[in-house]
C-alpha cells in the first residue's frame, strides 16, 4: 500500500511537469515529429533507428559523459531498447521485468516483475527481453513463459494478461511488441524447438486475439506443397523480432526465422515457405498480401528476422517505396514494399554459399555447401553476417549502417526426431572464432555498396543508432560504446562501459537536452553533454 501511495505521488510530480499520460496511435505514426521521445522499438514504424535530434554533433561529442547508470538484478542478458514517452523511460530486464525510470536521474518509478516457472524452457536463446511497446495509457511486454501483458504506463499495474503460446513446447516471447492502431502485434520465439511460427494481433484494450497468421501453411493452404510429408507441422519460421509498418499501405512487414530442424534439411525437402522470408500482412486482418523468401530451404539457421527497414528510394531511376534489409545470409536486399517485387541484392559481408542472387531474387546456391556429418566450412557462421541488433538508416546521408559479423563455421548435420519441448535442430556448428571479427559498416542504401567500415575485434552484437547530428552510435562485445562520424566512420568518442554491449542505443530529450541510452553488461547507461 505504501508503495502505491509513493508511486502515485511521484507520478503526480512527473505529470505536474506538463506531461500527459497518453500515447495515442497518431503519435506513433508521427513519431519522427516528436524526436524528444523514443516511442517504438526502432524509434518509428519505418524501423530507421534514426533521430532528427542534432544537439550532439561531431564537434561536441567528445564531451559526452554518463548522466546516470541503472543497474539491474537477476540472471540473463540485457538486450533492452529503451522506450521514452511523456517523461518516463521504460526498460526491460531479464527474465521478464519492466522498469519505469525517471530519465532525469535514473531512479525507478515502478517495476513489474514476472515470476518464472522453475521448468521454464529456453531453447535456442538466452533469458532476455528486448523491450516494450506503448499505446494510449498502457505498455505491453511479452514474457519468456509465453504470455503478453498490458501494464498501466503510469503505475505498472497489470491491466490484462493473455497466453500467446505454451512454453512447455518451447514457445517464448522475447521481442518488443509493436502497437498498431488498436492492436498489439506479437511474434514468437522457438525456432529451435520445432514450433509452428505465427504473427498474432491482440486487442490493445482487452487482450483478446484479433487474428493469427501462421508462417508455415497447413494442408490446403498456398505454399503447403513446399514441405515434404508432415514436416510442416514442426516447420518453425519463428517471428522473434519486431516488424515494421507502413500506415499509408496499412501493411506490416514481418521477418520469419529458419525452418526446423535447422541444419538437417533432408526431412523437409522443398522451399519451406514461408520461412527465412518477409511477409507483408494486412494490419487489420493479418491476411498475407505478399511474401518474399530470402533463403529458400535454408539449412544454415539464417533467419530473416532482421529489421525490415522501410525507405523511399530512387532505384534504377524510379522512385520506389522500398523495403531494405541486411540479411543474416550476407546479402543486402532492396524490395518494392507495395508489391514485394525484388529489385536488387548485393553481398555486404564474406559469404561462400551463393554465386549471387538471380533476377527474381533467388540465390544461386553453390553445390556442396550444406551441413554434413563431418562438418562443412561455410561463411557466414550460423549467427549470420548480422543478427537481431538493429541497423540504422539515415535519410540524411542515404546510408544504411549495419552491425556486421565476419565469421565462418563448420556446419554439422545430425539425425533428429521431433520431441515436444526439446531442441529440434539436427546439427550445429564449430565456429572459426579465432579469426572472426566485426564491424559497423555503412552501405549505400540503394546499391548496398560499402561506403566505410569501422572495425571491431569480434563479431558485433550491438545495434546502431544514427542521428541528425551527423553521428552513428554503436557498441562492442568488449564494452566500448562509441560515436562515429556518419559520413566517414571516423571514431569521435568512446566510453568503456565495463560489460558487453548487446542492445540497441536510443536517443531522446530530457529537459530539452539530448541524451543517448544503451544497455550493456547488467546496466542501462545514459549519456549527455555536460550542462554549461
Amino acid at each position: 500500500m505504501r508503495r502505491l501511495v509513493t508511486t502515485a505521488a511521484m507520478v503526480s510530480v512527473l505529470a505536474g511537469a506538463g506531461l500527459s499520460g497518453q500515447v495515442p496511435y497518431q503519435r506513433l505514426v508521427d513519431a519522427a515529429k516528436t524526436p524528444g521521445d523514443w516511442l517504438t522499438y526502432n524509434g518509428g514504424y519505418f524501423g530507421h533507428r534514426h533521430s532528427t535530434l542534432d544537439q550532439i554533433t561531431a564537434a561536441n561529442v567528445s564531451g559526452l559523459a554518463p548522466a546516470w547508470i541503472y543497474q539491474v538484478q537477476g540472471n540473463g542478458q540485457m538486450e533492452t531498447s529503451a522506450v521514452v514517452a511523456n517523461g518516463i523511460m521504460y526498460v526491460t530486464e531479464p527474465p521478464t521485468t519492466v522498469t519505469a525510470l525517471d530519465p532525469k536521474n535514473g531512479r525507478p518509478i515502478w517495476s513489474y516483475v514476472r515470476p518464472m516457472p522453475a521448468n521454464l524452457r529456453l531453447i535456442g536463446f538466452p533469458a532476455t527481453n528486448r523491450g516494450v511497446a506503448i499505446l494510449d495509457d498502457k505498455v505491453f511486454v511479452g514474457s519468456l513463459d509465453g504470455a503478453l501483458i498490458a501494464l498501466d504506463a503510469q503505475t505498472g499495474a497489470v491491466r490484462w494478461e493473455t497466453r500467446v503460446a505454451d512454453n512447455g513446447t518451447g514457445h517464448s516471447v522475447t521481442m518488443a511488441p509493436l502497437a498498431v492502431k488498436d492492436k498489439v502485434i506479437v511474434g514468437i520465439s522457438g525456432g529451435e524447438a520445432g514450433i509452428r511460427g505465427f504473427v498474432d494481433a491482440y486487442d490493445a484494450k482487452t487482450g483478446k486475439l484479433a487474428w493469427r497468421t501462421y508462417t508455415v501453411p497447413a494442408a490446403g493452404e498456398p505454399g503447403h506443397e513446399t514441405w515434404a510429408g508432415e514436416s510442416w507441422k514442426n516447420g518453425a519460421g519463428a517471428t522473434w523480432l519486431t516488424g515494421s509498418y507502413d500506415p499509408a499501405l496499412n501493411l506490416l512487414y514481418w521477418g520469419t526465422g529458419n525452418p526446423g530442424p535447422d541444419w538437417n534439411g533432408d526431412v523437409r525437402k522443398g522451399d519451406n515457405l514461408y520461412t527465412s522470408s518477409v511477409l507483408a500482412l494486412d494490419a487489420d486482418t493479418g491476411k498475407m498480401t505478399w511474401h518474399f523468401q530470402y533463403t529458400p530451404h535454408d539449412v544454415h539457421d539464417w533467419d530473416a528476422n532482421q529489421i525490415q527497414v522501410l525507405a523511399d528510394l530512387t532505384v534504377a531511376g524510379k522512385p520506389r517505396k522500398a523495403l531494405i534489409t541486411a540479411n543474416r545470409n550476407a546479402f543486402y536486399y532492396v524490395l518494392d514494399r507495395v508489391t514485394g517485387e525484388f529489385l536488387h541484392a548485393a553481398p555486404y559481408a564474406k559469404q561462400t554459399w551463393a554465386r549471387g542472387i538471380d533476377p527474381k531474387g533467388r540465390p544461386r546456391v553453390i553445390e556442396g555447401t550444406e551441413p554434413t556429418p563431418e562438418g562443412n566450412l561455410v561463411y557466414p557462421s550460423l549467427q549470420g553476417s548480422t543478427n537481431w541488433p538493429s541497423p540504422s538508416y539515415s535519410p540524411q546521408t542515404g546510408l544504411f549502417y549495419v552491425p556486421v559479423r565476419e565469421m565462418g563455421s563448420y556446419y554439422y548435420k545430425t539425425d533428429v526426431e521431433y520431441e515436444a519441448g526439446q531442441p529440434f535442430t539436427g546439427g550445429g556448428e564449430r565456429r572459426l572464432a579465432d579469426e572472426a571479427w566485426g564491424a559497423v559498416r555503412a552501405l549505400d542504401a540503394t546499391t548496398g555498396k560499402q561506403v566505410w567500415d569501422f572495425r571491431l575485434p569480434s563479431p558485433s552484437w550491438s545495434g546502431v543508432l544514427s542521428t541528425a547530428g551527423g553521428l552513428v552510435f554503436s557498441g562492442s562485445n568488449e564494452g566500448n560504446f562509441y560515436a562515429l562520424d556518419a559520413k566517414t566512420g571516423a571514431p569521435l568518442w568512446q566510453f568503456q562501459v565495463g560489460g558487453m554491449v548487446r542492445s540497441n542505443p536510443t536517443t531522446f530529450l530530457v529537459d530539452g537536452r539530448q541524451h543517448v541510452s544503451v544497455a550493456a553488461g547488467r546496466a542501462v547507461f545514459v549519456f549527455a553533454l555536460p550542462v554549461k
Partner: protein
Amino acid sequence: MASLIVRRRMARVIAALAVCALPATARGQYPAPALERPLAEAGAGDLAEGKRLYNAQCALCHGIDGGGGYGPSLLRPTFARAADDAGLFTLVRTGIPGVMPGFGDANGPRRSWQLAAFVRSMTRAGGATPPGDVAHGRVVYQARGCANCHVLGGDGRAFGPDLTAIGLQRGPAYLRQALVEPAARVPDGHVVVTARAKTGPAIRGVRLSEDAFWVHVRDAGGRLHALRVSELAEFRREAGASLMPAYGTLAAADLDDLVAYLSTLRGQR
C-alpha cells in the same frame, strides 16, 4: 523510498525464484540421484551416447565442438558453475534457472551421467593414468625451467597458465601435445599478437585484452604495453602461435615422466 520497496520486492521475487529452482531437481519424475561413479569411468559406449545427447541438446548453444556460441565455451579447464564431477552431473540435469535449460527430465540419470562424462571428456581427453616416473618428472620440470613461465603451488613466474591443478583440468594426451606442439593447444587468454606503433619497434607478446580502441600486451620479458589502436601501424593476432617453447626434443622417457608428474598435480599447495 519507492525504489527501496521495489528493490525489496525484487529481492523477494529473486529469492522465490531461487527457492523454486531447488525443487526443480525433485519436481520431475525421477528422484535426485547422487553421482555414483566418477565421470572418468565412462567407456566408449557411454561417451558415444553422451556425444549424441550433446549434439541434440547442447551443441546449439555451446558449439558442436564445445567451443561456444550463444553459450560459453566448454573447452576450459574448470567450470564456474560445476566445480567437480558431481556438480557437472547436477548441472546437465537441472540447468541454470533462467539461463540454461536442464535435460534431466528427458534424459534420466543414466543418460545424464553419460552426457556429463562426454562434456568432461571434451577438455580432459585421455583419462587413463599415464606411464612414467612421477618423481623424475618433477626433476625434469625443475631442470627444464618450467617455473620461469608457470606457477605451481604459488611458486614460479606467472606468464603461462597456472599448473597447480593441471592434472585435474587436463588429461595426459592434452598435456603431452601441449608440451610437444604448444601452438596446437593455445589456452584461452594466451593469444599471441604482434603490434607495431606508427613510431617505435614491433611488440610481440600475449594479448591481455583488446577492444576497439585499446590493446594490452605482455611481452616475453614480462613488460606490459598499453597501446592505442588508432596509433598502430600494424596489429596481428597470430592464430595457432604460442610463446611456449616446444619440448619435442625431450628424451621420450623424460617426456613420459613429465606428463606423469603433471597428471598428479591436483591443487595441493
